[in-house]
């Protein structure tokens, strides 16, 4: 038997000394951090829509070219408040191919998710997959998702929503900095929510922004989140707490200042992986195709088991053993992980197929070009030895 590469999954020393998380995790340097927080301590303004939160909202509104950019504690709370502001009830169409935050945000409204399938090639929601659901039952909104620095068929979905007279709102958690035909993510739908979790390109550690062009929806969101005298007080069903602190806003402002640099770094790293992985049979790098501008914050690969020679889950385990904390995309899909929801009657086969093939490699700020080269080399070797590795893993199980 040919000697295979020593792998950590079989007891060898891991390729990386410390775990490399898949998220972006951009953060100020120590000196910058110390100076930012010294300023906050001197101002003694800690939360409640302080000067930094106000500055961040102003800069986001300007950059995204949106009337209202309202910062919140995190993206999930942003989605929950948005659903409340829109008054969604009954069914809301949402892809099963998404992070749990999307559909779970509906648990905090009067609505329930109606899971739709995705396009088999892009893995994204399209008007074609949503349309049959709208004609079959009563639906109060479409909650679309723009994952991975890419976008779904927003234009088609907006036309469909208009046709049925229901709002489209968007979970664009991964979408800061992306553009569709030159128009920034944040300006689409009735409301668009972007996440500032540290895994995304614009990190506030935790955080998010609710974007809308509608004065009425903005007033409703602000009255739930806490208004701070901005805009008119309007009645809401119930208030929540969605404040962003000065600490979160400080980190977000720093990262916003460095966005261009981060994006360039991501794009170069993405290019390195795309080129380096191109020759590996059965492994395809997913390239954002629904946007005119991507932030390249996620590196999604699709594994064709038959050609690659190894199950996606085995590859995932091997990488994790090497301290590469790869992900499996949106696996398992929502309709298979949420037992509380009714079983969908429509087919979600493309979703299931996509979920079973996805592997997400790290786009962590700590990952160097040399690390990327080693990782590419490792993936090549794994593929070459796939049969032997697969047999050994199966035997060990």
């Amino acid at each position, binding site marked *: 038997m040919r000697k295979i590469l020593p792998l950590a999954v079989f007891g060898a020393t891991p390729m990386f000394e410390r775990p490399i998380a898949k998220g972006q995790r951009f953060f100020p340097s120590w000196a910058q951090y110390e100076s930012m927080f010294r300023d906050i301590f001197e101002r003694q303004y800690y939360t409640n829509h302080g000067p930094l939160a106000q500055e961040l909202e102003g800069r986001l509104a300007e950059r995204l070219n949106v009337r209202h950019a309202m910062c919140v504690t995190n993206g999930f709370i942003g989605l929950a408040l948005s659903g409340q502001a829109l008054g969604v009830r009954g069914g809301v169409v949402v892809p099963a191919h998404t992070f749990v935050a999307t559909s779970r945000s509906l648990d905090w409204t009067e609505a329930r998710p109606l899971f739709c399938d995705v396009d088999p090639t892009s893995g994204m929601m399209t008007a074609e997959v949503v349309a049959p659901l709208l004609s079959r039952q009563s639906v109060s909104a479409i909650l679309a998702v723009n994952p991975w620095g890419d976008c779904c068929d927003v234009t088609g979905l907006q036309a469909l929503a208009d046709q049925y007279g229901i709002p489209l709102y968007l979970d664009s958690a991964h979408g800061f900095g992306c553009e569709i035909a030159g128009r920034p993510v944040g300006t689409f739908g009735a409301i668009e929510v972007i996440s500032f979790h540290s895994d995304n390109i614009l990190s506030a550690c935790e955080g998010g922004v609710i974007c809308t062009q509608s004065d009425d929806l903005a007033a409703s969101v602000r009255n739930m989140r806490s208004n701070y005298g901005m805009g008119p007080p309007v009645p809401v069903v119930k208030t929540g707490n969605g404040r962003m*602190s000065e600490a979160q806003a400080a980190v977000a402002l720093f990262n916003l200042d460095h966005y261009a640099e981060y994006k360039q770094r991501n794009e170069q790293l993405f290019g390195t992986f795309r080129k380096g992985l191109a020759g590996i049979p059965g492994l395809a790098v997913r390239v954002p195709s629904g946007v005119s501008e991507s932030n390249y914050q996620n590196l999604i690969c699709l594994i064709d088991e038959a050609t690659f020679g190894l199950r996606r889950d085995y590859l995932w385990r091997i990488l994790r053993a090497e301290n590469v904390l790869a992900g499996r995309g949106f696996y398992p899909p929502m309709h298979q992980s949420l037992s509380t929801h009714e079983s969908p009657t429509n087919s979600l086969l493309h979703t299931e197929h996509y979920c079973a093939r996805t592997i997400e490699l790290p786009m962590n700020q700590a990952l160097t070009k040399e690390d990327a080269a080693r990782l590419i080399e490792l993936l090549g070797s794994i593929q070459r030895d796939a049969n032997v590795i697969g047999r050994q893993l199966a035997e060990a199980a």
Partner: protein
Amino acid sequence: MEVKPRTEDFALFGGQPLFDSIRSISNLVQPDFDKFLSYSRLIFEDQCYSGGGRVEQLLESRLAEFHQVRHSVSFCGGFWGLVLAMKALALQGRTEVVMPSLTYRRLADIVAWAGLIPHFCEVDPLRLCITAETARPCINGNTALLLGVHPIVNSCDGEGLEALSAETGVPLLFDAVESSYETLNGRRVGTFGRAECFSMQSSKLLNAFEGGYVTTNDDALASHLRAARNYGFDADGKLSASGMNAKQNEIHAAMALAALDDVDEQVQVNRRRYDRYKVGLASVPGVRLVPFDERERNGYKNIVVELLDDWPISRDLTLALLHKDNMLCRPYYYPPLHQKSTGYAMVWSDLSQTEDLAKRFLMLPCGYFISEEEVGQVCDYLRAIHSHGGELARRAPQAR
């Protein structure tokens, strides 16, 4: 120097404000910066910014120790900590939460987020809180949860409510957002009922920028809450409980740890401010300071006074005067929750005692931004209001 010798000296009538900047009822205590930085070091070492990082783990164990309880579970805020604890503890198939109406303005909204219905009870007129006696008449076949709320001065009837919970089988949760430091009959607040929820928003005793935590001795409840704050992902990564993102971030956790390190010294300073109020208000007619029970451990942060029948002007005018002189005082819970219009159902019967109490109390400036000397000025200011009484009311008919 005499404070406000003439009525025209009050800022409401054109005088110079007593303070040149706002004195509020928020704490806004500043932890030691170097301690904050030293905890922040861990964030840089781990490059983990949220979700079960080392700083949050350290905070949870420190808070558990502080409250002498098995678990402390951190949240991004006390608001969502309460929502998730209510959802976790409410009896299945029942909908009502027995709680006071004379309390935090958003507490009924919190119950509504949990998918439950507030059933308001009276409060004890002396302790200003829910007791077993005031809660008992509200318990019925649809009661899902008892929500004990500790008032901002002293604690509610913890042991009486525990006995009522044991007798009726209705689970007991406490809203203890202002009571981090308190004891009740010598026992730490944080150990009562099935769980207690605290806030670390910057206006509270512990300033974490934003934040909150739930204490419990119940292992299963702690695991459930840790999953619920992370969308429902349990320790094995399985999606179990219902959930949301209510995770504390690591910077806020570092701030909380620094605040916790300083809390004993802070309480000593609060105690001196409180003592100054006690001395200063003793000689002001018509005002009664709501006293801390000095046999217990108290944070001594909040200053609540009652305007008695011989106070010469309305509470509204008193507040209007204070505001203009840069004292951002607030009524003690007005309007009571059952008198607010909301978009969800609420249940109550006669709450005349609550309605009466809601008109009588107010909170005076406290916390990090007010010195002991300034506390003396606030007392002198109230004395001046009392002595000018009738004339102030005549000059401000619109504010009455």
